[in-house]
């Protein structure tokens, strides 16, 4: 815009610069602290010139918190959640938008309500369900008298039981069971022109064919957006993995960070803690940086 507002321009740059510094400072401080040795990191004030122990600290943090396998676990879980959401949300949105059946609105609302109550607030009973995922179905069989009937008829006592604690499915499935993506797809599917559907049907395409060959390729942008958001979200999950992975082989990088907190009264190994923090914050940051150009474009109409 052509307008002369020198004072305001100066003010704008000043505020933005302060914002920039505050935003970047924690990253810089973490990186610098990760390069110091024990004595320098605890200096008051800490030197803002990088030290020379960066790789040593990274290596120590890596082995102390056993980050290799943990990062792999985080990666498996985040990818699983992202893929699950992308697929299941697309299926549901397709069902809601492209079919007319009784109870369609009920399904819509059942899904909508799940947005209101996050996993954190129903954590205790969800934990119980994951300890035995078939518990709800066993309860239904018991309540309806079906298990009694089956036992009478066949002599088999129905005991459904499948524990998912310390498993990838136990980590992933409860996180997939919210409806975030469904509405993103729904909004998009509603903008797809009817003519396209008409043409596809005239050419003899069935529902499944239309979905796979036409609708999914069109929603590539949405899938990438949802996939990115869900990957970051799942990577950053803390409470759920903390609870259900008691066995070391399934814990996440993010939850392992806690082991690096210097104990009160112990040796203040902040340089190791910051090296670990840096390792754990890097992967999602890289995803943000890589997807950013596209991510912002998806959100912002570029035509000005």
């Amino acid at each position: 815009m052509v307008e002369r507002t020198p004072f305001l321009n100066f003010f704008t740059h000043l505020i933005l610069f302060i914002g920039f510094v505050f935003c970047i400072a924690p990253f810089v401080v973490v990186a610098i602290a990760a390069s110091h040795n024990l004595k320098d990191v605890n200096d008051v004030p800490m030197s803002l010139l990088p030290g020379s122990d960066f790789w040593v600290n990274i290596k120590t943090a890596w082995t102390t918190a056993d980050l290799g396998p943990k990062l792999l676990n985080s990666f498996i879980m985040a990818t699983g959640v992202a893929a699950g959401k992308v697929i299941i949300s697309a299926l549901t949105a397709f069902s809601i938008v492209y079919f007319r059946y009784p109870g369609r609105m009920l399904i819509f609302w059942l899904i909508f309500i799940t947005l209101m109550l996050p996993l954190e607030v129903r954590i205790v009973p969800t934990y119980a369900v994951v300890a035995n995922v078939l518990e709800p179905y066993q309860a239904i069989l018991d309540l309806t008298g079906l298990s009694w009937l089956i036992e009478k008829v066949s002599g088999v006592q129905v005991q459904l039981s499948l524990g998912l604690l310390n498993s990838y499915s136990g980590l992933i499935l409860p996180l997939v069971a919210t409806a975030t993506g469904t509405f993103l797809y729904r909004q998009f599917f509603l903008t797809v022109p009817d003519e396209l559907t008409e043409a596809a049907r005239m050419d003899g395409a069935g529902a499944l064919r239309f979905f796979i060959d036409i609708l999914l390729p069109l929603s590539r942008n949405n899938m990438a957006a949802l996939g990115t958001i869900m990957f970051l979200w799942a990577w950053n999950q803390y409470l759920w993995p903390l609870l259900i992975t008691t066995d070391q082989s399934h814990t996440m990088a993010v939850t392992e960070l806690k082991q690096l907190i210097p104990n009160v009264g112990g040796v203040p190994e902040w340089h190791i803690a910051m090296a670990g923090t840096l390792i754990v914050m890097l992967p999602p940051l890289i995803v943000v940086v890589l997807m950013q150009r596209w991510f912002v474009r998806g959100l912002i109409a570029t035509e000005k």
Partner: protein
Amino acid sequence: MEKRVTFGKWTIGILFAVPQLLLIFTFFYWPAGQAVYWSLTLQQPWGGGNIWVGLDNFRSILSNADYWNSITASLVFAGISTGLAMFIALVLAALTDRQLAGSRLYRVVLIWPYGIAAPALAMAFRFILAPEAGFMAVVNRVWPGFWDPGLDGADAMASIIVAFSWKYVGYNFIFFLAAFQAIPRSLIEAAAMDGSGVIRRFWDIQFPLITPTIFFLLVINITESFQDSFGIVDIMTAGGPANATNLMVYKIYSDGFKGLDYSGAAAQSIILMLLIVVLTIFQFRFIERRVHYR
């Protein structure tokens, strides 16, 4: 908006929704129902049946001073951090939208905090705000005893608010910027030609047009501050000192899984769910009326 052209066979239609329905039944509706049932019974931690106690769990929770303290702490945390994160993000986005030289750089960097896991940034801020090392130590050297989140409840609360707001400034910034950029440039140019200044244009044109975004972010920020705070609290303060930062989610976790009081934790979950629902409805009813939709 409805589709004119649909696929006829409705049985197939329902099949597409089945995976989602199974998941939300197993991991959402069943546990939510269980929470209600447990909150009304006394559940033995290691099985062995449960006894119906009606509203006793709620009575004992609500007569507990620790619990009220936790509600107050949660509300203080939610209010201040949401206010801070939204105000700062709004200012930064409005200024970035002026598109002066270098605004692209700000646009790139200001989004980064959103990608960082709450526990990781909590670790970073735990170090930055540590009383004996890092930066607050300098302040403590000048005024001894000025800052110690390990001993002073207000300092601990300030620490978790800073960490949470820092992350959500990044998140809010993305949405505010998108909203600002969706406003047609011609509208602002016309106003400029009519002689209105930058600040006038902000209040009369841009601000009213982004109220839907403000409202959306208000709901999201408040809801998130009740749950996403868990990692920050666990790493930075573990609920202390003296329960000053024992937010509701954290208390549910420590009572339920450390204290093995499943019934009490379930009752607290129900109260937290109700609180979130009430806050959301309240915002919809009273704030949405002032929102301009196009």
